[in-house]
């Protein structure tokens, strides 16, 4: 009786712990980033080339199902996520950033801001992204909770802690073969934060 009860309790504890670890690996609980086990990293931008593929590990598939359901396989699109500025500090609503970049090795690209729940921030500013139809050649955009005087703008109002997703549709073979050599990773320079004024 003692053995049976002890082993039953041990099995239950183990199962709960195993299930919890799986949910954390899928980023359903805890604070795991959408691409915490990225296999492609270029200047702070992280991606996983197995997104959308049957070859993806169970952990990647689970995480993408939670954070990026219906993501395309890399032959059609690749997705890079950035969570920090150029100094390595987490991106957050209260600060103002300048993001700058150029052309990308793809038919079309865009950069969209998402909050910590992987949704677009709940504001009505109509400034959710920049894309290749507006950011042409060498471009720059302001990321801030209030609009700049001029230029491209992505609103972080009501975003809290956020990330930026760089989508590249119909990426070139060169990018897929050697992303570190061919991606033109946008820079994110922190201009100011409220604590800077103190």
């Amino acid at each position, binding site marked *: 009786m003692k053995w049976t009860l002890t082993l039953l309790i041990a099995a239950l504890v*183990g199962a709960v712990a195993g299930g919890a670890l799986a*949910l954390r690996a899928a980023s359903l609980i805890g604070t795991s980033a959408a691409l915490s086990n990225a296999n492609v990293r270029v200047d702070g931008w992280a991606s996983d080339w197995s997104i959308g593929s049957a070859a993806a590990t169970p952990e990647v598939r689970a995480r993408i199902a939670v954070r990026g359901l219906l993501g395309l396989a890399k032959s*059609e699109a690749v997705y890079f996520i950035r969570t920090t500025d150029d100094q390595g500090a987490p991106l957050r609503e209260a600060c103002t950033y300048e993001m700058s970049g150029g052309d990308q090795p793809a038919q079309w690209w865009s950069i969209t801001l998402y909050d910590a*729940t992987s949704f677009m921030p709940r504001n009505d500013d109509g400034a959710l992204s920049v894309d290749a139809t507006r950011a042409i050649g060498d471009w720059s955009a302001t990321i801030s909770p209030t609009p700049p005087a001029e230029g491209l703008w992505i609103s972080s109002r009501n975003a809290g802690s956020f990330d930026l997703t760089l989508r590249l549709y119909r990426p070139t073979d060169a990018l897929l073969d050697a992303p570190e050599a061919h991606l033109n990773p946008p820079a994110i320079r922190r201009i100011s934060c409220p604590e800077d004024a103190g």
Partner: protein
Amino acid sequence: MRLLLAALVTAILAGVAAYQLTIRVLPGRIMDRAMAAMEERGIPLHGFALAPRMTPDRQTVVRPSPDLAYSVCRFDLSGDVNAIRVTAAPWQPYASVSFFDARTNNFATVRAEEGADVILSRHPSSDAGIIEAPTVRGLVLIRRLAPTPDDYVRVASDAAPGDTCAPVD
């Protein structure tokens, strides 16, 4: 001591089993919920519906792109339906038709700038115009580049009405 060791081994084995089961079952469960939610929102079975333009108050799945117009069709190749025909009206400069199975895998994508016309079948085929579905249920998604409200209006009037997703007799 023996009891403690047995308990530890039991806990580890149960933990590993629970982890593997959960991590493998989760995508299918999430896809089931997503398809059920789409059904509740009126996404038809074997027919395309153009989703409203993605804005913060209309987003229904994680990480939607506000620069794309999405048309969605649910498919179910069980029962009497062995195959569906999927057509997409042409759209420039970017359009694609992507197919997702019940485990979230993007098992096929075709270009659609000049339009698309393919058969999705439950059975394998050597015909280049026929795609085999790995699972009987899943989603077909058309993406069209539409970064502005005017672009979206043009998709709604000029392209989306020409999309079809219907059983093949």
